[in-house]
């Protein structure tokens, strides 16, 4: 073993090679080529790659060992290609980084040269050696040798596997009809493929339809969104399933079987003339209007907003007296049938209302699924000190958005309960960046929507005092910082420091916020007619059932988890299932659209090929050993295992199995094994690593004191002390 002082990685040449012990082995033997990578200096600085190479050459079945500065580079891969072309080797081991980094690279190198890519094995001597043990060079080199040894043990036993493909149904399910889902659907539909869009509300458009204007350009939201919504509603390739919910999803990439529940509207959209007498006739009028965030009320028969897509009326079964209580006035379902009495809405309607409509289930098969379920505002009551729901002056940012919107309850005029407004205070980061609330993350959009709202408020009320309280301003997007500057120039006052509490001004309708100006270190108070809580975003509650159906994972922040947070932001761990928009993390419209379009591109990748590759390293049942007990099916998270009733053994659905190995570990008879991770392959690897006696000695010293029955003198082992040792030694 080299002393640490003696190791000088600068003396190691960029490449070298040595013949292995099995150089003269017969052609049909496993003949392994080992390639040790320097990763520039990432590996070389702590692992003596020359020593590892020489050690590798001494291992069984190794024909050649080489080291090179960058194995993943083209000249590096060429070393492998040349050895394969010369017929020198028929197995490949690269000792470099994590398989997550470069296993696909080197598998492709092998398959391009005609070698089955599953004859490739990887020893991770970077993440597992040089990086964590950079200050312990001799140990890191020894560990690298061990890892190479275990790779050789496993590589010798590897079997060739064939990569398989499944057919892909060229249709896509988009869950969620907000801006993200709409842009995903439009791209796929315009590409010529069928899209099924499921939206649980009576209209598509999502939260974006509620907004007044967009930051930072201040364009009107409705004038930009309505044409897109109409395009989705009218697109021949989009099957819009509004007022519907996904009930069930099964299957796998290319072939997801979906059941969609279509809720009854109790109105025949064909006959509905979009007149309004039914609304006036309906006796239930005090239902908080969801679209206006409860700032106004609606009837039980309603259209969510004037530019809804589809432009259809709905009877809300939760509030309609006839549907909820069975009776509206003198009318019941029976009297309607008999023609004796009808409810007021039917009396006012020229014949479009139909209480006989029933819930329907639509069945689909789709190739990919795009989850774009969006967000909910965090419950503003999580920060009780801001007195939401206690003081009518305290409202959420989305409520304020409705006050600014021309389609809102005040026609865009900022007033609360009919009163004029002089002073407005905005509070940032409510429900975000707050461990008490349980949301440590930044919601990303609040800084800018507050800037926009404050700007619009100042524009409408030039004499009003508009104050924005904040802890940091995050104006990171294109045009954001410039917009933030404009907002400040407009006269909006930015005060650093989050208000700590709000109290009602005695003898007045106004409230007072208490805060510190952290830039001066001075506490202050400020009066306001309206306090706007800049609410954070959390995943839409409806996503929970989708998570269960699709077996998706959540990150610690509660949002859906991507396959990789940086490199695969819209993929999930399951092929063919994509996530986009605010269900994955809070984001603005620009980013949501970008992600929506990214999932369209990801889906089209499969649709245009009409086929998808599936993982070959999956479970395999040895039918001769299987007793059909079904233990494996119980643990399988993907539902890939089923009992074959005829021959009474378990079978693997190869398209569904993800190769997690759960069945393998629980199978009582040893019938379930994993291809590419056979028991013997894994055991060989483990044995190679544990050959050193040290571990065994340690184990025995723990076990020894337990088995010392009184009177039974154990046979003294060679070298053991004849006298009994105190246990506590």
């Amino acid at each position, binding site marked *: 073993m080299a002393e640490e002082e003696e190791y000088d990685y600068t003396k190691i040449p960029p490449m070298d090679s040595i013949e292995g012990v099995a150089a003269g082995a017969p052609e049909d033997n496993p003949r392994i080529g080992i390639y040790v990578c320097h990763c520039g200096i990432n590996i070389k600085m702590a692992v003596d790659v020359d020593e590892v190479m020489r050690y590798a050459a001494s291992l069984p079945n190794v024909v050649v060992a080489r080291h090179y500065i960058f194995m993943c580079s083209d000249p590096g891969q060429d070393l492998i290609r040349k050895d394969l072309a010369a017929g020198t080797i028929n197995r490949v081991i690269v000792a470099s980084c994590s398989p997550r980094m470069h296993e696909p690279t080197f598998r492709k190198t092998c398959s391009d040269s005609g070698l089955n890519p599953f004859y490739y094995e990887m020893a991770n001597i970077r993440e597992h050696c040089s990086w964590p043990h950079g200050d312990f060079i001799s140990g890191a080199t020894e560990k690298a040798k061990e890892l190479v040894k275990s790779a050789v043990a496993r590589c010798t036993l590897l079997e060739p596997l064939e990569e398989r493909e499944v057919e892909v149904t060229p249709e896509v399910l988009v869950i969620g009809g907000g801006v993200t889902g709409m842009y995903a659907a439009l791209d796929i539909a315009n590409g010529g493929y069928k899209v099924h869009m499921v939206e649980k509300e009576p209209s598509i458009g999502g939260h974006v339809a509620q907004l007044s204007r967009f930051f930072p350009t201040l364009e009107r939201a409705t004038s930009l969104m309505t044409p897109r919504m109409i395009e989705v509603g009218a697109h021949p390739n989009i099957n819009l399933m509004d007022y519907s919910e996904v009930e069930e999803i099964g299957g796998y990439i290319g072939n997801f079987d979906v059941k969609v529940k279509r809720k009854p509207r109790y109105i025949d959209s064909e006959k509905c003339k979009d007149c309004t007498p039914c609304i006036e006739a309906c006796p239930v009028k005090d239902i908080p209007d969801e679209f206006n965030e409860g700032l106004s009320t609606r009837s039980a028969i309603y259209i969510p907003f004037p530019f809804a897509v589809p432009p259809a009326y709905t009877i809300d079964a939760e509030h309609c007296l006839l549907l909820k209580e069975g009776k509206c006035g003198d009318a019941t379902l029976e009297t309607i049938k008999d023609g004796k009495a009808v409810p007021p809405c039917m009396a006012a309607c020229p014949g479009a209302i139909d209480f006989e409509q029933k819930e329907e289930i639509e069945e689909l098969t789709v190739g990919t699924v795009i989850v774009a379920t969006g967000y909910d505002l965090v419950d503003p009551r999580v920060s009780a000190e801001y007195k939401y729901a206690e003081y009518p002056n305290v409202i959420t940012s989305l409520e304020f958005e409705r006050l600014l919107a021309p389609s809102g309850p005040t026609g865009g005029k900022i007033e609360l309960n009919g009163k004029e407004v002089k002073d407005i205070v905005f509070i940032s980061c409510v429900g975000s960046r707050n461990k008490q609330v349980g949301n440590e993350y930044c919601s990303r959009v609040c800084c800018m929507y507050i800037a926009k709202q404050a700007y619009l408020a100042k524009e409408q009320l030039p004499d009003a005092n508009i104050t924005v309280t904040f802890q940091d*301003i995050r104006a990171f997007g294109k045009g954001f910082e410039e917009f933030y*500057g404009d907002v*400040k*120039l407009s*006269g909006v*006052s930015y*005060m*650093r420091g989050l208000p700590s509490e709000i109290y009602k001004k005695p003898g007045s309708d106004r409230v007072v916020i208490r805060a510190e*100006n952290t*830039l*001066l270190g001075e506490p*202050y108070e400020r009066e306001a007619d309206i306090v706007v809580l800049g609410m954070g975003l959390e995943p839409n509650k409806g996503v929970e059932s989708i998570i269960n159906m699709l077996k998706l994972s959540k990150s610690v922040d509660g949002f859906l988890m991507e396959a990789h947070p940086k490199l695969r932001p819209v993929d999930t761990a399951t092929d063919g299932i994509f996530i986009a928009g605010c269900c994955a993390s809070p984001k603005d419209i620009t980013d949501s659209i970008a992600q929506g379009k990214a999932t369209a591109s990801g889906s089209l990748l499969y649709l245009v090929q009409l086929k998808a590759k599936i993982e070959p390293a999956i479970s395999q049942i040895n039918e001769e050993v299987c007793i059909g007990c079904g233990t494996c099916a119980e643990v399988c998270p993907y539902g890939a295992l089923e009992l074959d009733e005829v021959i009474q053994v378990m079978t693997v659905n190869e398209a569904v199995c993800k190769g997690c190995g759960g069945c393998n570990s629980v199978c009582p008879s040893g019938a379930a094994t994993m291809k590419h991770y056979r028991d013997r392959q894994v055991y060989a690897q483990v044995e190679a690593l544990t050959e050193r006696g040290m571990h065994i000695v340690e184990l025995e010293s723990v076990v020894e004191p337990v088995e010392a029955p009184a009177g039974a003198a154990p046979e003294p082992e060679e070298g053991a002390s004849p006298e009994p040792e105190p246990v506590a030694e």
Partner: protein
Amino acid sequence: MGTLYEDIIDYGGEVFGEEHLETLRECVQCGKCTGGCPSGRNTALRTRRLMQMALVDMREEIFNAPELWFCSTCYTCYERCPKGVKVTDVIRTIRNLAAKEGHMSVPHRMIGVYVMKTGHAVPIGPDQMKLREAVGLESQPPTAQKHKDQLEQVQAIFKATGYDAMIDFDWATMNLKGMDKGGKK
């Protein structure tokens, strides 16, 4: 009288232009002004704090803050401000507003006394006169300090503009009112 910010724009705007001073609103309180302030290194001047006090309308506090007068108007902050706030000119405007309302530091008023007495903020003293004579120059250059008739013109301007009243100048003692000759109260 509006808010301090409005007064800065109204009063200073006549000299610098309103847009010039409106940049104050773009201040993000990064502290680059304070960090590089040569005066602040040795004094209590915290330029960022002055900007914030101006923005949150702390009129009395800022007018009575001794550090308002510690700025040497070197314009370092002005050159470096990432948001283009015309920092030094904002400070100069605030000083003018403060002076108008009777808040002016004694050293600054003393400079006024020098101008009253000699026509110069930095008059020539006996040492400089000796130096000039040593190199063959007249003991005094041809300035208002030398020519009494011109000094009288300067004094006439000060009287006409009310500057003498602003700094509380006493024509009898030719000094600030209530001050002895050493400039101490």
